[in-house]
């Protein structure tokens, strides 16, 4: 560990460590993002702890490591659910900010960590932290979501998440030659599925225009479109243009949303 980031308080050696301000005791005092003002980190930290779900995510951690042992992401990345529980329990704002900008995106949200004997929910802490990262348009959220822009677009424009035609050789090299055969004959494969609503290739199942319009109105009225605008201007632009054209085709006035909902 490098020197503690002492900006306000006794000089090193002036007194016992325990007498210093609590934030100086951060185990992540050599954390990245030291250039980010403390107040900004604290604001985001408070936003996480102010979430209505917070009181049910963390009760106290005695570092048994069961969550880490159960965590699939811990096997593949430099990632540990226990660190989230520890950093949040210590109210380690610097450590929190580093997690918020880096390994918060390494979790697969499988919640295997909820087998914690203390009923902690590190995956739940991460859910809240990700929402805070998204709501605040953090760069880490933008970067994490960049590779999934079409998935966001599908969810927001159709309500379906994955589309069969996402199975493309350059996105699924791990499938080997199989993915080429699937991608080349996708329409045939899909027609082998009995329900007609699943004969789609561009989206998971057939979605009516009414559903799409209602969904768009929900995103618009709940402020979700504004969040997307902050995160990915391109998706926002397409969504707005495609959906508003659809509204226009159906003779709806976007500002008169009550008539659209009726």
């Amino acid at each position, binding site marked *: 560990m490098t020197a503690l980031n002492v900006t306000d308080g006794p000089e090193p050696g002036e007194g016992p460590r325990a007498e210093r301000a609590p934030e100086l005791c951060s185990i992540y005092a050599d954390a990245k993002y030291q250039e980010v003002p403390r107040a900004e980190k604290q604001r985001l930290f408070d936003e996480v702890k102010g979430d209505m779900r917070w009181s049910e995510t963390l009760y106290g951690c005695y570092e048994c490591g069961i969550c880490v042992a159960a965590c699939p992401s811990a096997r593949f990345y430099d990632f540990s659910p226990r660190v989230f529980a520890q950093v949040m329990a210590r109210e380690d704002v610097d450590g929190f900010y580093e997690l918020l900008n880096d390994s918060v995106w390494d979790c697969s949200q499988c919640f295997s960590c909820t087998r914690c004997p203390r009923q902690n929910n590190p995956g739940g802490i991460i859910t809240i932290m990700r929402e805070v990262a998204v709501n605040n348009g953090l760069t880490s959220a933008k970067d994490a979501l960049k*590779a999934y*822009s*079409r998935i966001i677009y599908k969810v927001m424009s159709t309500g379906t998440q994955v589309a069969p035609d996402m199975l*493309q050789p350059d*996105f699924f090299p791990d499938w080997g030659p199989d993915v080429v055969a699937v991608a080349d004959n996708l329409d045939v494969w899909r027609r082998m599925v009995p329900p007609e609503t699943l004969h789609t290739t561009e989206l998971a199942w057939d979605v009516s225009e009414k559903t799409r319009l209602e969904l768009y109105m929900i995103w618009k009225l709940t402020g979700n479109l504004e969040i997307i605008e902050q995160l990915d201007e391109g*998706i926002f632009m397409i969504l707005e243009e495609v959906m508003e054209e659809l509204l226009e085709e159906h003779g709806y006035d976007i500002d008169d949303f009550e008539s659209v909902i009726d």
Partner: protein
Amino acid sequence: MGEVNNCRLPDDLHYHVEYNVWLRDNGDGTWDLGMTDIAQSLAGAIIHCRPKKVGKTVRAGRSIATVESGKWVGPVKAPFAAEIVARNDAAEADASILNRSPYNDGWIVRMKPLEGEDPSALLVQGEAVLEGFKEYMAEKGLEECVHCDGFECD
């Protein structure tokens, strides 16, 4: 033919680096627009291209087409305000021509600038194109362009 890290940038075209598009001056007051080699490389295998309808007008910086690859979607932006006078139906029917022939068969729309627009002033040519895209690629983390089977740009 200009080239930056295996990315082809034909000399006779005009470019808008930030929007990652090329434009061809048809000499009759219309301009063809398409995605650059760099744009098609960033997108990966393109599976859908939906150009806007003929007769629509777009403002500068707005989308003239939606392009989708496996997991990516993005707008193709117009550098200047224009009316769409033609669109490439072949690109909509088989969007992979945007990968195979980004500068020829893969043109997306033909646009007529609205009155008062001066396309040449907004676009770059020559050395500025290479410098601009070199910087753009560094920013996007694209090391070099990727060309599929049958790629052509002559």
